[in-house]
């Protein structure tokens, strides 16, 4: 990890929950981006993690904006910096609710317009900030406060939606692999125009597992193939090393689902559907990687 800078942009005084993997993720995102960066944050856990005015736990400017507005706000900011002749990085750091649900219109608009910014969706697969209500990213079978018997529909494929905008760079990442996050963010910021990184961020209180297991949970997601790490650079897809290894010898999905309270009592039919989707996704990505090699 020698290449990762020691400088901290996320101070130790955040109000994040114990074991919060999205704040861990943000730590590496900011290390990769450096000081000449503005974060645009819609309503989400990160808007709370900063602390209460006049204090801030962030060592970069953070512009908090209304839930649906982050990407559009970033468009204005990016154009203004351009007009001022500044190269400042504009990074939207939004949860899955602000990305897959309420914010999808403004994200799509900003992608289509070619806004020069990086959009990061940290995905804890529910509305974590308000106590774990379902989102478009909640997987089939997961219990949330608004799907008390388990979600009956599947997770929205935001990566396919993002890919349909023909971005020059997009990637997936996971909080359990900080070096991978660091490299992908650093690379994304070298591109002009819109880029997208979708980061799985396990959430101890929401997923109902002990706080100290947060890294292990992310690794289980990748090792089971439930979450695949890859990057797509100018239409060339590369599956990242941890997922390559997982694809050769995946662990059973049950090892990922089992330790999580949110999947307690999930019916076998839902597990079968999840397994089928997982297999389809891996097959699809492997085929794309081979075709674009």
């Amino acid at each position, binding site marked *: 990890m020698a290449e990762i800078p020691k400088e901290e942009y996320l101070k130790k005084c955040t109000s994040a929950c114990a074991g919060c993997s999205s704040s861990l993720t943000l730590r590496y995102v900011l290390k990769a981006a450096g000081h000449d960066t503005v974060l645009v944050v819609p309503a989400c856990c990160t808007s709370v993690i*900063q602390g209460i005015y006049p204090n801030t736990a962030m060592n970069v400017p953070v512009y*908090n904006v209304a839930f649906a507005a982050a990407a559009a706000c970033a468009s204005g900011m990016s154009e203004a910096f351009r007009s001022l002749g500044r190269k400042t990085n504009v990074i939207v750091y939004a949860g899955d609710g602000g990305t897959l649900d309420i914010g999808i219109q*403004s994200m799509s608009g900003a992608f289509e317009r070619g806004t020069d910014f990086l959009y990061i969706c940290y995905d804890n697969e529910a509305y974590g900030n308000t106590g774990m209500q379902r989102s478009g990213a909640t997987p089939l079978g997961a219990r949330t406060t608004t799907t008390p018997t388990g979600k009956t529909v599947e997770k929205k494929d935001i990566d396919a939606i993002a890919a349909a905008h023909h971005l020059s760079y997009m990637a997936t990442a996971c909080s359990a692999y900080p070096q991978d996050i660091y490299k992908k963010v650093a690379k994304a910021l070298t591109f002009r125009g819109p880029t997208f990184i979708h980061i799985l961020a396990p959430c101890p209180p929401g997923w109902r597992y002990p706080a100290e297991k947060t890294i292990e949970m992310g690794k289980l997601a990748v090792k089971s193939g439930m979450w695949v790490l890859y990057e797509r650079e100018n239409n060339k897809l590369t599956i990242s090393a941890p997922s390559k290894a997982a694809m050769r010898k995946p662990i059973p999905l049950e090892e990922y689902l089992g330790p999580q309270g949110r999947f307690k009592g999930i019916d076998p039919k839902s597990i079968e559907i999840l397994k089928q989707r997982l297999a389809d996704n891996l097959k699809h990505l492997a085929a794309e990687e081979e075709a674009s090699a």
Partner: protein
Amino acid sequence: MKEIATGNKAIAKAVKQALPDVVAAYPITPQTEIVETIADFVTSGQMKSRYIPVESEHSAMAACIGASITGVRTFTATSAHGLLYMHEMTNWAAGARLPIVMANVNRSLGPGWNIWAEHTDAMQERDTGWLQVYVSTVQEAYDTTLMAFRIAEHNDVLLPVMVNLDGFVLSHIMQPLDTVEPGNFIPPIHLPHAIDVKNPAGYGGLTGPDQHFKFRWDIERSIRDSEKVIAATEADFAKRFGRKYGPVEEYRCEDADVILIALGTLGKEAEVAIDILRKEGIKAGSMRLRWFRPFPKLDLTGKDVVVIDRDYSFGYGGIVAHEIMAKCHCDVFSVIAGLGGQEVTYDDIAEFVRKRRIGTEFWFGVNAHV
């Protein structure tokens, strides 16, 4: 330079001369001509701004907010449903103390689908912290837009300004327009809280009750302070360019027994009605409210007051009438007229004055006294 222009074109020309860095807007009838004209100015290189063709009005205001917080000059334009779709973000703009200038082409709200003039759209924004001004001619639309940037960006104000013009009646009508060379009339923008990566700060995050109260009070104080800034700006405009405006345009009010009050084009139309009434020996005068926020101080002591509202608050009444009753401690004859572009002639207006019944509300067209 003298020419003929529509209200929409006049706004676009003023925006071009104000040199905003970023314009973000979404087209909507009857505002469309404003953004089309600006897009043409930018594309043809006549205007150096960055024009962001957003996917919605919510995003238009969000983009202006993102641009404005970097410390640059911003503009947008909308109308009716577009304004309401922005509503969340109009609150955000004022709360974040961002001097965004917006033209709102006043139009009614559906259903039914009606594209003609009404002020209910802007009146639904009255509690957001935006300054609001209503114009009545093409020239005034142009002049006021130039002044709006200077007022919004003044460090004693730092609040967004909405320039309102009646849909079609003014947005699409052609009138003479005398454009000016603004020179240094609008000083360079200096936003004290602009984002600075060398001095990181959090903006718009969690705020406890005490600080929130203070922020709200600061907005109210700036609304009050804006009166002086507006007066100084209008005085300097008159000195430089020879056209004089004020919070209220009074017409034959000196010895009047009855005062007629309206906004926008109806307020201008009222002057013809006043001349008719004067010929009949009725001592009438008119006050056209230009600024609605800050609300002007009016002396109506001992007068009969007739107020025409091109808006309505259901279950409450004409919004302007009620503001006047509350702030001037008087009773009025409240006329609801012109909704959805309903035609109201100067003869109709004169008739409202002749047949006034102070203390009642009258729905013109339905001819119902309430």
